[in-house]
C-alpha cells in the first residue's frame, strides 16, 4: 500500500504539471506528424514531363506515369526548364517525350524517350528507374499492338486497347519475388510507421530522464526524510518511485501507440510482441529516470542535461535517421545505447512482420539494460532515502 501511495502521488504530480504534459503528450505527436510526412515524402518521387508534341502515345505515357502511386507528375514546356528543376532538386527526374512519337510508333519505328537525372543522387536514380519501368511497360504494349495489327484485321488502336486491357487486367504475367537473405537487412518501415515507433523510443526515454527532476524535487523538499520517518522500508520507496516512472512511461507509450494507430494508421505489428516491447522500454525508461534523479543535484540540471543526453542517445540509436545509412562503426557505437535495440525491434515488427520469437534477442538486450539501470538506480536511490 505504501509503495502504491508513492506511485500514485508521483503520477498525480506529473499529470498535474502542464509543462510535463506538453512534453509527454503534445510534443511527441507533433514530431511524429512532422517526421512522418517527411519520411513519407522520400517514397514519392516528383517527376517532370516535357511533351514536345508526342501525340496520343505521349498522353498515354503521361497518364501511366500519373497513375503510378509512387510518382507525382509535374509538366514542363521545355527540356531546359525540366533539366534546371532536376538540377535544383525540385523534381527527381524528367521525361522528355519527343515530337511525332505517336506517328513513329504506329509506323513501327524506334522512338528515343529522354530521361533527365543526376547519376550521383540515389533518389534520382530510383526515380529514373521507376519512370523507365513505366515507359518500358508502355513500349511492351505498343509492340504487342503492332504485332496484333500486322497479323489480324484489327486496327492498331483496337489492338493497343486490347493489349492495355490484358496488361492491367491480369492476363498471363511473369513477376519477380525477391527475398532478403539477411533478416536484419536494410528494410525500413515508411512514413508514420517509421516515425511513430522511433519517436516513442525517443520521447519515453527523454521524459523519464527529465522526470528525474521530480525525484530531486522530492529530495529537496524533505519528502523522503519524512517518508523515512514513517514505518516504510527504503526498498518500498524505491519500488514506489520506479513504478511511478514505469506507469508514466507506459501511459505515454500507450498514447503514442493509440494516436499512431488511430490518427496515422500505424499497424504496430504483432500485438503481444509490441506490448512486451512497450513494457520493457518503459522499464528501461524507469531505470534511466531514477538514475537521473540520483545523479543530478538540482531539478534544473535534470531538465537541462536530460534532454541533451536523451537526444544524443536517440541520434546514436537510430531514432533520428536509420542506422542503415551510417557507417558500420557508428552502427556498432549506436548499439551501445538501448535505443538502437528498441528501434531494431520495432523495425522487425513493422517492416518484416516480426514476432515475439523473432525479436527475442532485442528484447533480451533491452531487459538487460532495464535491469542494469534499475539496479544501479536502486542502490543510489536507497542511499537517498535510507537512514545513514
Amino acid at each position: 500500500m505504501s509503495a502504491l501511495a508513492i506511485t500514485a502521488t508521483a503520477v498525480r504530480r506529473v499529470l498535474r504539471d502542464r509543462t510535463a504534459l506538453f512534453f509527454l503528450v503534445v510534443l511527441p505527436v507533433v514530431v511524429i506528424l512532422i517526421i512522418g510526412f517527411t519520411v513519407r515524402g522520400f517514397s514519392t518521387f516528383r517527376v517532370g514531363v516535357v511533351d514536345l508534341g508526342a501525340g496520343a502515345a505521349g498522353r498515354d505515357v503521361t497518364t501511366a506515369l500519373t497513375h503510378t502511386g509512387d510518382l507525382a507528375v509535374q509538366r514542363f514546356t521545355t527540356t531546359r526548364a525540366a533539366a534546371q528543376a532536376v538540377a535544383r532538386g525540385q523534381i527527381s527526374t524528367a521525361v522528355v517525350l519527343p515530337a511525332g512519337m505517336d506517328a513513329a510508333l504506329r509506323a513501327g519505328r524506334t522512338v528515343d524517350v529522354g530521361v533527365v537525372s543526376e547519376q550521383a543522387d540515389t533518389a534520382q536514380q530510383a526515380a529514373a528507374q521507376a519512370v523507365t519501368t513505366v515507359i518500358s511497360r508502355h513500349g511492351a504494349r505498343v509492340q504487342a499492338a503492332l504485332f496484333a495489327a500486322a497479323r489480324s484485321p484489327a486496327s492498331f488502336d483496337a489492338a493497343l486497347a486490347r493489349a492495355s486491357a490484358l496488361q492491367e487486367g491480369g492476363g498471363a504475367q511473369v513477376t519477380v519475388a525477391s527475398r532478403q537473405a539477411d533478416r536484419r537487412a536494410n528494410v525500413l518501415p515508411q512514413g508514420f510507421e517509421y516515425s511513430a515507433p522511433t519517436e516513442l523510443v525517443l520521447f519515453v526515454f527523454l521524459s523519464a530522464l527529465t522526470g528525474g527532476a521530480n525525484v530531486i524535487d522530492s529530495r529537496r523538499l524533505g519528502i523522503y526524510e519524512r517518508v523515512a520517518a514513517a514505518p516504510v522500508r527504503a526498498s518500498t520507496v524505491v519500488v514506489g518511485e520506479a513504478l511511478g516512472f514505469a506507469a508514466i512511461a507506459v501511459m505515454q507509450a500507450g498514447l503514442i501507440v493509440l494516436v499512431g494507430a488511430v490518427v496515422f494508421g500505424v499497424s504496430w505489428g504483432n500485438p503481444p510482441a509490441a506490448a512486451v516491447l512497450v513494457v520493457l522500454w518503459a522499464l528501461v525508461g524507469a531505470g534511466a529516470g531514477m538514475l537521473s534523479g540520483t545523479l543530478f543535484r538540482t531539478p534544473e540540471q535534470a531538465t537541462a542535461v536530460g534532454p541533451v543526453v536523451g537526444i544524443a542517445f536517440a541520434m546514436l540509436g537510430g531514432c533520428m535517421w536509420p542506422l542503415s545509412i551510417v557507417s558500420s562503426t557508428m552502427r556498432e557505437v549506436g548499439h551501445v545505447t538501448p535505443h538502437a535495440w528498441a528501434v531494431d525491434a520495432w523495425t522487425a515488427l513493422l517492416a518484416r512482420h516480426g514476432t515475439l520469437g523473432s525479436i527475442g534477442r532485442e528484447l533480451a538486450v533491452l531487459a538487460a539494460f532495464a535491469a542494469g539501470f534499475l539496479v544501479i538506480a536502486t542502490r543510489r536511490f536507497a542511499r537517498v532515502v535510507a537512514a545513514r
Partner: protein
Amino acid sequence: MGAMSPLLECRGLAKRFGDRTAVDDVSFEVGAGEIYGLLGPNGAGKTTTIKMVCGLLAPDAGTVLVAGRSMGEDLSAKSLVGYVPQDVALYPDLTAMENLTFLGRLYRLGGKVLEERIEEALELTELTDRGGDRVESFSGGMKRRLNIAAGLLHRPELLVLDEPTVGVDPQSRHAILERVRELGTTGMGVVYTTHYMEEAERVCDRVAIVDRGRLVAEGTRRELVAQLGERDRIDLTATGDLAEMARRCRAIVGVDDAVAADGSLQVVADDGRKVLPAILQAAEAVPVAVDSVQVVEPDLEAVFLHLTGTALRE
C-alpha cells in the same frame, strides 16, 4: 517522571560526521503527556539528536527506545512517532488533503479512518476550510501548521517537533505554541527543539540544555534556574568594543560571567544592582556607548550563559 517506564528513552547517543562530533553521549527520557524541550543554539546537535530519535539517522553509539521498542531494529517503533521536520516537507503542487492522504497511507491508514484523521488534523490546525487548496497558495504560517498536522495524522504517542516556529509570523507562532501545549494535555509525549529561550520557558515541562553536542543540564525551569542561585542577568545594548568590555566585566568582583554578541552584552552577577556602577565604569574606560541597561531576574538564557559561557543567539 513517575515510576512508570518512560515513553522515550535515549541512552548514550553519539553521532560523528567525519572529524566533527555532532552528538556526544546524550541521554534523556520523556514521559507520556510531557513536553520536553531541547534548547540550544544552531549547530548544538538538537536536530541530529531528534533525527536519531526518529530513526532517520543511525547512532554511532547508544540506543533509542520508544515505548520499549528499539528504533532502528523494530520498524513498528516508527509508527509510534510523529515527526515534524524543521522545513515544510510537503508537496506544494498538491492540495493539503492530497498531501495528508499520501502521508497517511505511509502509516497504513486508509478509507474512512484516513478521512476522519485528515479532518481531525485539519481541524486541530485550523485549516479545515483550506483542505482542498494547493499548499503553494498557503502563507508561511499555514504551511507550518499543515506540516504539524501531517505529523499528527496517525495519532502518534510521541510527537517530535524540530524548531517548528522558525520563520513564522508572531500570530502563527502563538497558535503553534498553543497547539503544542494542548497536545501535551492529551497524553502525547512531545520533544520540542528550539533556540528560542522564551518558547522553551512557555511550552516545555522540562528542558535540556544542549551545547556543542552535549546535554549540559536538564530539569524544569525552576530546577535549572536554581542552578544559578540568586544570580541576576544584566543586559546592555551598546556600541563599541564589546569583547573588551566583556573581558573587563569578568574581572569585576561579583560578576559570574559576561558575553558580548550582536551589539549587546550579557552579564551574570550575584547582585545585579550592586555591580552595575562598576560595569558602567568599565564601559566608560573601554570606551563603549551604552544605549540601555536592564537588570532581569534569572531565566533560561542566564542559565545557558552560566553553563556554557555563550549566549543562545551566538
